[in-house]
């Protein structure tokens, strides 16, 4: 049984990290609040590390879901923002050479170099880039106009109600 101690230095990446296409449960480091850790035990010598390619604009029923959240959160005021303009295209093969391995994932934030690694694990890079999907760009514009239209309608309704009550 081999052990991999995974350290991540960014909270924004936690939900995206997949090992063998599965999410991992991270815990916060006791000394530093910005460092997250996870221990993985495996019989294999190789592990596939990848980042989730999820984007809210590419999921099924994206318009209904987004508009629903926009209305429920009172014009998006009380909602959290999802800043994922890009899609992660990151895939790596981790070679576990020892019984106890340690790997630190450091985000670089570059288009052609998203992640960097430190530790005693040999990492083979298959893909390590950010991609702009033309569909996301198009749908973002569509969503902006939908929200804008909805705000205008809401303002018109409020004004009409106010005018009718004053009269």
């Amino acid at each position: 049984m081999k052990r991999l101690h995974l350290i991540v230095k960014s909270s924004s990446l936690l939900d995206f990290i997949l090992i063998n296409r599965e999410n991992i449960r991270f815990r916060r480091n006791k000394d530093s609040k910005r460092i997250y850790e996870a221990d993985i035990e495996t019989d294999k010598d190789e592990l596939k590390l990848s980042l989730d390619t999820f984007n809210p604009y590419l999921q099924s029923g994206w318009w209904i879901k987004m508009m629903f959240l926009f209305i429920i959160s009172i014009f998006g005021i009380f909602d959290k923002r999802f800043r994922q303009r890009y899609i992660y295209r990151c895939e790596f093969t981790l070679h576990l050479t020892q019984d106890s391995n340690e790997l630190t994932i450091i985000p670089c934030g570059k288009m052609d170099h998203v992640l960097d690694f430190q530790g005693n694990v040999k990492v083979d890079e298959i893909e390590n880039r950010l991609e702009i999907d033309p569909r996301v760009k198009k749908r973002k514009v569509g969503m902006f106009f939908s929200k804008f239209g909805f705000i205008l309608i809401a303002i018109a309704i409020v004004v009409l109600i106010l005018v009718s009550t004053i009269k």
Partner: protein
Amino acid sequence: MTKLEKTYVSSHLYEICVNLLLVTGIITFCLSIAPIAFALIFCLYALVAIWLCIIIILITVGLVFADHNNVLYKILERLWSGLTSFNFSMVESMQITGLPIITAITGVLLVIVFITTLANKSRYGKAKPIVFMIITLVFLIIAIFVLAMLNAGAK
């Protein structure tokens, strides 16, 4: 299906509910502490009054013992005349109009502090502290206007 796909709507709904509850809670809290804020402001006025009394005593002592041709005497004399001719009715009117406004400002400042803390809490993606700030400022302006109008109406 990954975790992000599965939990997209539910995680957003959770965040919206938490934010709404927190803001409602803060507003209720601010309204409930309004009497305490009034009491605190009265204490502040009391402190100012004590401080004024001490100054008046010091000036009186100075006027009694200082040489009448001295520069210090002239300064004290001016201060004395300034204090005695001070329009206290202005302070009284300030108490009536100022208190709700100060209470509102205190409440809104609390809201800003709590909301910025909340904005930094989000795990993925970032909340909008600037938008929250602008909204709270708008709320503050509306609150001041409403309070001022209510106050004018009460008079």
